Structures are given as structure tokens and as C-alpha cells.
């Protein structure tokens, strides 16, 4: 069988090698190679979408063979309903970001090489079904990300990059421990995620720490959760995010917000849920509280921001809170909503970041209110109407306006979460986030786009064809999925249904 | 006195002298500011070990392997002293001093 997932994963890597071999003085060639190297996975992604069997919860397009025998490590790739939306998101956003990065002028080779490497890592994470392989890809992503932020980022790039790296590494070493622990405490020893998920292996076992005997599965759960929570990011592990998002170049912010954050929640659904269902139930209350805190905290912080990009960054914190809430609800609607929200947030935030990047390219600042208190923008709707229009769509999608994609997922999340009698109070509190989301986004919209025109920006140019091209697919997705979400929802239904049987 | 003489020829006596030399060697190494002084301390420590080996060779095993070790200790001490003095002379040539505390450009 054609190893489609591996091909999708490694084409960018191949592209990276080709790019590194190209001469330094021809940036356009480098760019086109990158376009090809991301367009091919995108095309294969479309193929996947067409041929994905929506009726089964089992793994599809599986590739499995032994890799490291002594540890029973396998090269095991496959996708199910949980991974495929993420895979599609990854290939789409990567492709768009390559195009959106056309304006990078220095170190073009390095930039695109790193970017393609990043795509390989992301694809791998979503396809890997062996914990070791997963972890490998998980960490691989860190390296290009560090360089992308650190080299092509903004003023505080170095701090941001190091912070990102340190935080994530902290999370991943915990994950490493859990991985090793799971290997040795499973019978037979395995890293295979599907095998680990069989038979509630870790329930009732204990491990000693400083003389205390701790329940193994809960310990594993916490370790994994922290590892993933940092990526999501769940409060209080979120402080890397504003830095990384703000300092990163536009396309990298898009990938960060669009794909990387999802890895956290994906990981929780892929590992914590099926492998440690008892511990997951045990921790559901805790997750729910964190989710609600995320929603509110992110929203409150976003409201206080003066930097456009930071605002969007904090809005991501808030929106990822919905995902956590949905996941923790253990209801069909909630979990479906959560996964859908992962996809939808990917598209809408990608739009927002792209848009912020576009304006930043033009005026080289992003202040809603400048640090000295004067207006950063104001009234630019009249000079850049198309831009404003697209921004409005992104914004309304983000704040969950019906008819746009954000609403569906948020609605499902809340419907689901409310259907679990344990969590109704949290949902009531969390719903404040809907309100606040509208508040900070509209307030931002008002201050930036509406009102009398700030004369500084009267010569602002509207979007060019390239920028429009990057945004159109996302716009279409946002609207289409807002009206009819089934194209994405039906991918995941069976898988999530099966997942939920563990908790009924 | 007799008792003392008894003691001196016993294993205890040898070990006691070894221990004294060892302690004094440590003291010497730690206190001498003079680089050569440190070397003296090291020699004391090595001699302490040699005494022990010789003593155990006689009282404990009755074999000469302990004495062989002592011989090697001596040889190594000589080699070490040669290298050490070369280093110290070089040190003196570069710094016009052999104060061990002066050798602290690299720290923290």
C-alpha cells in the first residue's frame, strides 16, 4: 500500500534538504520549492479527505513496522477521526503560511528550511501512533520553532524563543517520564498507543516517591497533562504564549496558534483519554475548572492589551479554554464541539494573525493604543475596506457569531458541557467568556478600524493578491463550516463516539 | 617505654605513623601557599600510603605485593615530582611567583 502518511510527512523534509542545497542568491527559487513541498502534502490531504472512511473508528492508512526491536518501538503511523481534522489543518495552514511568508527577505533559505522541517514535525505528531515516535516528532517541532521565532522574530525574539523552548521542554520531559513509565508498567512492554489503551493497564498500580505510595495512573495523567497543558496552553502555564506569538513572524504565529496549540488538546484526547480513562474522570472537575479559568483569564487579559497581536494571542488562550471545557464534559456534543473548535480556532485565529501581519508589514507597528497613550490606528476602514471586511469576518468568527464557524463549536461545547449535570455551574461562569470575547474583539475593531481616520495611515494600501489568496480559503472555510459543519464533523463522529464509551 | 617500643614495632605503630603523615600531608597541602610546599604535602601523603602497604605486606599478608606497590608509589612520586617541578618552574617564569593563590585567573 502506498504509505501516504509518511509521504505527506517527509515531503517537506525532502523539500528542506533541497532548499538547503540550493544556492543562496536565488530566494525566489527557494520560495517556489517550498510552495511545491507544501502543496504536495496539501493535495495528498485532499486525497485523504476524500478517501477517509467516516463510518469506522479504527485507524486508517496505517503503516506499521518494527523500528527499534529491543524496546519494541514501532514505526506506526495512522489516522482516525481525531487526527484527520488536525492533519488537514496542518497541511492547509502550512501551505498558506509559505505563501504568506513571501515577504521574508533575509535568510530566506534558512527560514523556509525551518518551516518545512516544522511541518514534518507537526504532521508526524498527528499521525504517530507509537508513543516514542510521537514524542520524537513532538520535540522535533521545537527546534525549528525556536529558530523561527529567535531569528525572524520581533524585538524581544530571543527572550520569547528561549521562553518558548524552556517551557515546552519542561512539559516534554514530564511527558518523557510518563512515556518511559508507561512502557515499563505496561504488559507486555510497549509504546503502541492503541495497545496501551487496552485493558486499563495502570489502574490500581502504585509507585513510590519520597516514601509515599502514589497511584500510578493519576501520576501519569498529571505528567501527561502538564506536558500537554503547556502546549495548549492551560493557565497557569500560558505565559510563554503571548511572548512567542507576539514576537514570532506572522506565518509562525499562524502555525503556533493554528496548529501547535491544538497539539496539546490533541495529545490529551489521544493519550490521557483512552489510556487513562479512570484518571481522566477523576480529573475532569479539575480540567473543567482550568478550562473555565482559561476562558475568562484569556479574555480578561486580552481586553487589557494594547498590542493587536497580543490581544489575538490572549484570545487564543481564551478559545482554547472552550476546547478544554468541551473535552472535560464527556458528552457527545461537548467532545465533538471541542474537536471542531480545535479546527475552527485554527482557521479563525490563522486569519486574525495573517491580518495582523498584513497591517504590521505596512506600518511596522501593531499598537491599538500606543504606549504613549496616543491612538495607534483608527478609522482605517475607509482606506482599506477589503481588509476591514475580511478582518470583520475573522473577528466575528472568533467571537462566535452564528453563521460563522466559531459559533458552531462553541455552541456544541456549551450544549455538551451543560448536559453534564456536574458542570453546569462552571458552564454558567464560563459563558461569561462569550460575552467578554465579543467585548474585547469589538472594542479592538472599534479602536482600530472605526471612528475618524488617523491621518498617519491615510496612505495605507489594501491587501494585494498574495495576501488575499492566503485569506480566501480560510474565509471560505469559516463561512461554510459556520453554516454546515458536517464536512468536518462527520470525520470525527465515529471515533469520538467510541472514545466516549470509555466514560459512560 | 617498653610498651612504647612494643607499639612501635607492631602494625599499630606503622599505621599510626602512616596516619600522622597522611594528616600532616593534608594539612600541608591545604595550608602552604607555596606551590612547592603543596608538593611536599603530596609527597607526605604518598609516603603514608607506602608505609601502610609495607606494613600490611608484613603483618597482614606476608607477601611482597605490598612492597611492590610501595616501589611503584615511589617511582610515580618521582615522576610526578619531576612534572610538578617543571610546571612550577614554568609558573614561576610566567608570573615571577610561586604563590598558589596567584593561580586563579580562571574561576567561577
Amino acid at each position, binding site marked *: 500500500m502506498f504509505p501516504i502518511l509518511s509521504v505527506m510527512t517527509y515531503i517537506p523534509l525532502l523539500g528542506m534538504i533541497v532548499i538547503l542545497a540550493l544556492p543562496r542568491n536565488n530566494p525566489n527559487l527557494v520560495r517556489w520549492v517550498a510552495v511545491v513541498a507544501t502543496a504536495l502534502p496539501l493535495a495528498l490531504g485532499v486525497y485523504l479527505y476524500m478517501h477517509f472512511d467516516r463510518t469506522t473508528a479504527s485507524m486508517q492508512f496505517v503503516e506499521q513496522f518494527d523500528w527499534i526491536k529491543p524496546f519494541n518501538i514501532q514505526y506506526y503511523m495512522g489516522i482516525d477521526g481525531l487526527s484527520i481534522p488536525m492533519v488537514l489543518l496542518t497541511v492547509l495552514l502550512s501551505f498558506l503560511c509559505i505563501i504568506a511568508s513571501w515577504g521574508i527577505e533575509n535568510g530566506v533559505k534558512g527560514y523556509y528550511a525551518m518551516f518545512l522541517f516544522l511541518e514534518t514535525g507537526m504532521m508526524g505528531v498527528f499521525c504517530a501512533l507509537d508513543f516514542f515516535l510521537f514524542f520524537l516528532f513532538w520535540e522535533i517541532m521545537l527546534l525549528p520553532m525556536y529558530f523561527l521565532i529567535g531569528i525572524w522574530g520581533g524585538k524581544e525574539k530571543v527572550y520569547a524563543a528561549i521562553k518558548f523552548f524552556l517551557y515546552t521542554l519542561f512539559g516534554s520531559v514530564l511527558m518523557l517520564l510518563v512515556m518511559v513509565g508507561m512502557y515499563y508498567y505496561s504488559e507486555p512492554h510497549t509504546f503502541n498507543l492503541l495497545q496501551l489503551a487496552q485493558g486499563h493497564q495502570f489502574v490500581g498500580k502504585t509507585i513510590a516517591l519520597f516514601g509515599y505510595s502514589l497511584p500510578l495512573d493519576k501520576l501519569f495523567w498529571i505528567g501527561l497533562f502538564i506536558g500537554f497543558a503547556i502546549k495548549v496552553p492551560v493557565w497557569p502555564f500560558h505565559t510563554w504564549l503571548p511572548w512567542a506569538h507576539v514576537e514570532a513572524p506572522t506565518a509562525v504565529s499562524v502555525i503556533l496558534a493554528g496548529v501547535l496549540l491544538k497539539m496539546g488538546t490533541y495529545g490529551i484526547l489521544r493519550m490521557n483519554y483512552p489510556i487513562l480513562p479512570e484518571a481522566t474522570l477523576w480529573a475532569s472537575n479539575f480540567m473543567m475548572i482550568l478550562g473555565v479559568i482559561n476562558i475568562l483569564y484569556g479574555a480578561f487579559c486580552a481586553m487589557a492589551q494594547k498590542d493587536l497581536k497580543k490581544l489575538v494571542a490572549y484570545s487564543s488562550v481564551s478559545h482554547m479554554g472552550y476546547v478544554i471545557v468541551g473535552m472535560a464534559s464527556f458528552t457527545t456534543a461537548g467532545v465533538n464541539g471541542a474537536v471542531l473548535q480545535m479546527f475552527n480556532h485554527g482557521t479563525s485565529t490563522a486569519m486574525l494573525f495573517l491580518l495582523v501581519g498584513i497591517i504590521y508589514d505596512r506600518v511596522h507597528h501593531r499598537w491599538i493604543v500606543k504606549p504613549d497613550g496616543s491612538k495607534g490606528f483608527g478609522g482605517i476602514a475607509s482606506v482599506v475596506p477589503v481588509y476591514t471586511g475580511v478582518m470583520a469576518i475573522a473577528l466575528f468568527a472568533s467571537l462566535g457569531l452564528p453563521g460563522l464557524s466559531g459559533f458552531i463549536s462553541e455552541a456544541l461545547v456549551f450544549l455538551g458541557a451543560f448536559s453534564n449535570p456536574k458542570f453546569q455551574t462552571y458552564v454558567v461562569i464560563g459563558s461569561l467568556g462569550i460575552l467578554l470575547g465579543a467585548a474585547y474583539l469589538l472594542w479592538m475593531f472599534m479602536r482600530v478600524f472605526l471612528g475618524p481616520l488617523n491621518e498617519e495611515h491615510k496612505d495605507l494600501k489594501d491587501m494585494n493578491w498574495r495576501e488575499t489568496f492566503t485569506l480566501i480559503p480560510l474565509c471560505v472555510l469559516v463561512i461554510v463550516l459556520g453554516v454546515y459543519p458536517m464536512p468536518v464533523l462527520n470525520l470525527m463522529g465515529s471515533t469520538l463516539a467510541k472514545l466516549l464509551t470509555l466514560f459512560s | 617505654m617498653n610498651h612504647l617500643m612494643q607499639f612501635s614495632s607492631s602494625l599499630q605503630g606503622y599505621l599510626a605513623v602512616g596516619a600522622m603523615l597522611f594528616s600532616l600531608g593534608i594539612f600541608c597541602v591545604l595550608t602552604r601557599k607555596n606551590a612547592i610546599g603543596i608538593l*611536599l604535602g603530596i609527597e*607526605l601523603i604518598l609516603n603514608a600510603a607506602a608505609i601502610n602497604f609495607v606494613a600490611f605486606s608484613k603483618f597482614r599478608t606476608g607477601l611482597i605485593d605490598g612492597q611492590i606497590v610501595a616501589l611503584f608509589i615511589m617511582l610515580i612520586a618521582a615522576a610526578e615530582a619531576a612534572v610538578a617541578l617543571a610546571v612550577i618552574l614554568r609558573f614561576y617564569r610566567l608570573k615571577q611567583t610561586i604563590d598558589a593563590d596567584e593561580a586563579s585567573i580562571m574561576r567561577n
Partner: protein
Amino acid sequence: MNKVLLLAEILTVASALVVGFHPNILYASVFLLFTFCGVAVMFLYAGADFLAGAQIIIYVGGVTILILFAIMLTQWLYKIKLADLRNKMILPAILSVAVAVFLYRALHQMVATLPLQTPEALEKFTSTPKTALMGHALLGSYLLPFEAITILLLGAMVGAVWLARPE
């Protein structure tokens, strides 16, 4: 006979004390020589006749002279006073005493329990000349270290020459 040994031991320890405490490095090195001599006597009484000779030749004839040469070459050293050392002596002294205490306790305990040679065997051991035995051992069962030390000495010599040789 035991008197000589006792005297040698006292000489050894006393000289070592001087080595440890005398502010003048020259005196210290000269007293180190006495220590070595004392140790040589002790070796002799422990049945290590060859070793005693080697001790005199290598240490007294070699190492100490080398040291004295070095001191002469760096004659600035006469100026060192005890006062220079004193302010750093408290902690090392405490440490050394602690080491000594531990050694005492340990060795005391050890000697009491250790299976030792019988007096007859001791006597026999002491009276056996060791030179031939040592020679056989060095070229027999201890050939490897013997060969190794030649390489070591070659290396040390080459190295020392490289370091000490003027440009």
C-alpha cells in the same frame, strides 16, 4: 633494635610536623628529607630492605634534591613568613584533625579485628632478603606495571622537558 625503630618513627613524625608547620619552605624541604630517611628505616624494619634502599635513592637522592633545586631556582621563597599561612590554617587544621581522628578510630578498630600473621611468620618474612624476590616479581607476575611505568617515565620525562625547556 626496637629502639631504633621507635626513634626512626619519632624522627619521621617530628620531621613531618616541621614539614607541615615550618614557615620556611627550605627548612620544610630539608626536614622532608629526614622524614624520608625515617621512613626508610621503618621499611627496613618491616622487612623491606630493597625498598629502604630505593627510598633513600629515589627520595632522598632524587626527589628532595629536585625540590631543593627548584627552591633555589625560585629563591624569592626565602621571604615567606609563617604569618602568611596562619590566617588560613584554622579550617585546614580542623579538617586534618578530623581526618586523623577518623583514621585513628578506623585503624584502631581494624587492627583489633584483622587476622594477622603469626610472630614466627613475621620473623621469617623480616629475615628474608627481598631484592631477588622483587626482581622476580617485577619481571614475572608484575611485568605489566613494570613495562607501563617505563612508558610513564618516558612520557613524564618528555613532558617535563617540554615544559621546563627554555624557548
